[in-house]
């Protein structure tokens, strides 16, 4: 019987026979921890594995991305605990200047098709964009993986989603993923793996593929594999110097379910508070006032997203009383923005541009919202209180940039 993508990847990393629903032990290629969760990983390692060498050191490291640089003493202490441990054990740290861990794994060529990677970040499934298996985990799981190089997994069943039809600008990958959330909800693929197929994926930028993969978390899914297009293959080749070898599902692979979602001429979508699946056509909320706009996050902070925003605001000014805050995903993206002149465009329009990191999503460096504040965010979650007491709407970089200019939707 044929296998789905996740089944093949897990089978390549297990001595046991991989079947959906079965619990198997998987070898993990790359183990990471970030500044959220990292100190507890260290604590667990020191408690349960005192004086134990970390094996396979070149494939275990720390990535700081949530509160960078540390804005309070407790955060500074947390990061220093990780740094000291890393130094003692000879592990690499991608420090506060680097950017979001998952994106660094892709840029540095650690996340490649077929690889298995874990970290203390629930959006590790972003790595499905490059055909890898990424799993976010808690600090006990990660500590265990640091030492043993493996962990247990319940092999997820796979749902195949066929996207029918095409759409074009101003509708983007973010609008597509919000629309899928609208259709299937926050538990739509709970505990499942997803494979996406469809004509609309062919022209997606690398960033749009990342966006689509990343919001699998908000659908309750384990991971999603958008069928890889030329842009993704080119991006990987550019970053690694090698032609990527993607793993594809067998023709006779067995799916739990097969869905078709019609996305023909899809219009821009927006998730209203308090949940990512509370989605409407942007049109329907026309006139909604906006106080602040956040562009960034692991979902929408890559160079393609920044270009979309800069194209819209170039030569214009952000509306009075609106604050536009921009956070590139990684140092690489920041560098591209500098060399392409995007930071100047943003500066001239009146935006705040910060160093790379998680930005608005993680009690981070770009600020929180106050009670009554209405924020448009290109991030992935708008749960009550997550980014402060204001109301957060999730939208594409295009919708966000337009709202920043207009002061309303």
């Amino acid at each position, binding site marked *: 019987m044929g296998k789905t993508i996740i089944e093949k990847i897990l089978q390549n990393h297990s001595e046991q026979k991989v079947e959906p629903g079965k*619990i198997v032990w998987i070898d993990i290629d790359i183990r990471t921890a970030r500044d*959220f*969760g990292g*100190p*507890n990983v260290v*604590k*667990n390692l020191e408690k*349960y*594995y005192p004086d134990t060498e970390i094996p396979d050191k070149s494939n275990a490291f720390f990535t700081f991305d*949530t509160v960078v640089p540390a804005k*309070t003493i*407790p*955060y500074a*202490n*947390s990061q220093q605990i990780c740094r000291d441990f890393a130094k003692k054990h000879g592990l690499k740290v991608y420090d506060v200047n680097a950017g979001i861990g998952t994106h660094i794994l892709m840029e540095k060529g650690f996340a490649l098709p077929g690889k298995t990677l874990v970290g*203390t*970040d*629930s959006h*590790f499934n972003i790595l499905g964009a490059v055909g890898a298996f990424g799993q*976010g*985990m*808690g*600090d*006990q*799981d990660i*500590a*265990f993986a640091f030492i*043993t190089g493996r962990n*247990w997994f*319940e092999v997820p069943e796979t749902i195949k989603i066929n996207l029918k039809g095409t759409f074009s600008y101003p509708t983007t990958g973010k609008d597509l993923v919000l629309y899928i959330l609208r259709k299937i909800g*926050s*538990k739509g693929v*709970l*505990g499942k793996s997803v494979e996406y197929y469809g004509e609309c994926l062919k022209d997606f930028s690398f960033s749009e593929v990342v966006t689509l993969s990343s919001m699998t*978390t908000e659908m*309750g*899914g*384990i991971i999603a594999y958008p069928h890889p297009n030329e842009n993704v293959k080119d991006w990987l080749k550019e970053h690694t110097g090698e032609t990527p070898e993607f793993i594809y599902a067998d023709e006779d692979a067995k799916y739990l379910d097969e869905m078709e979602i019609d996305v023909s001429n899809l219009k821009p979508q927006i998730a209203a508070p308090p*949940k990512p699946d509370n989605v409407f056509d942007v049109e329907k909320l026309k006139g909604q006032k906006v106080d602040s706009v956040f562009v960034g996050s692991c979902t929408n902070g890559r160079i393609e997203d920044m270009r979309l925003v800069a194209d819209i605001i170039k030569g214009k000014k952000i509306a009075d009383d609106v604050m536009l805050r921009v956070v590139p995903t990684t140092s690489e993206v920041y560098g591209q923005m500098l060399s392409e002149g995007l930071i100047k465009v943003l500066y001239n329009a009146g935006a705040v541009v910060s160093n790379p990191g998680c930005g608005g999503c*993680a*009690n981070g460096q770009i600020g929180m919202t106050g009670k009554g504040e209405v924020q448009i965010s290109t991030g992935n*979650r708008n*749960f*009550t*209180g*997550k980014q402060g007491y204001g109301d957060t709407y999730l939208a594409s970089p295009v919708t966000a940039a337009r709202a920043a200019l207009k002061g309303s939707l």
Partner: protein
Amino acid sequence: MQKDVILNGRIWLITNDKGELINDIDTDMIFHNQYLTITDLDEMGQYTFDNLEGWKDFADKALKDDIIVVGDNFGAGSSRQQAVDCFKSLAVQAIIAKSFGAIYKRNAINSGLPILVLDSIDLNNIENREMVEFDLENGETDHNAINIEPFSKVQMDIYQAGNLFAYGKNIK
């Protein structure tokens, strides 16, 4: 020594103002990201549900060995272990949900905190603070308004070992 597979505890039905079990309680409602620098288990309990409307005083009300009952997709959101550990800190004995977020499920199983999937519940015939007995092995209860699914094998093995680390040492 084998741990007891029968749990007895007073239940908290985590309901909204309509009396329904709350769905999609995410990790920022359970343990908000502003407290993530806390690594000491004893300090975590006080912030449990501190961002969950209607239940912000839960930490004051919860007693040792209580069992909480929630809706679908409990623990959606981030990978933070503290969202599990805060209940251990309060000595909450078990969490029963219609379904769990995937990472939350791993974190709870790995730390040996019993989590159980609700098979059915009749909210008209069960009340807060009732004492209920749950059998982790066969899924039986002593209350006809609530039914659960038994532990999976890996869950029972890790629970009996204490946590993932102890379990991992046994299987090598």
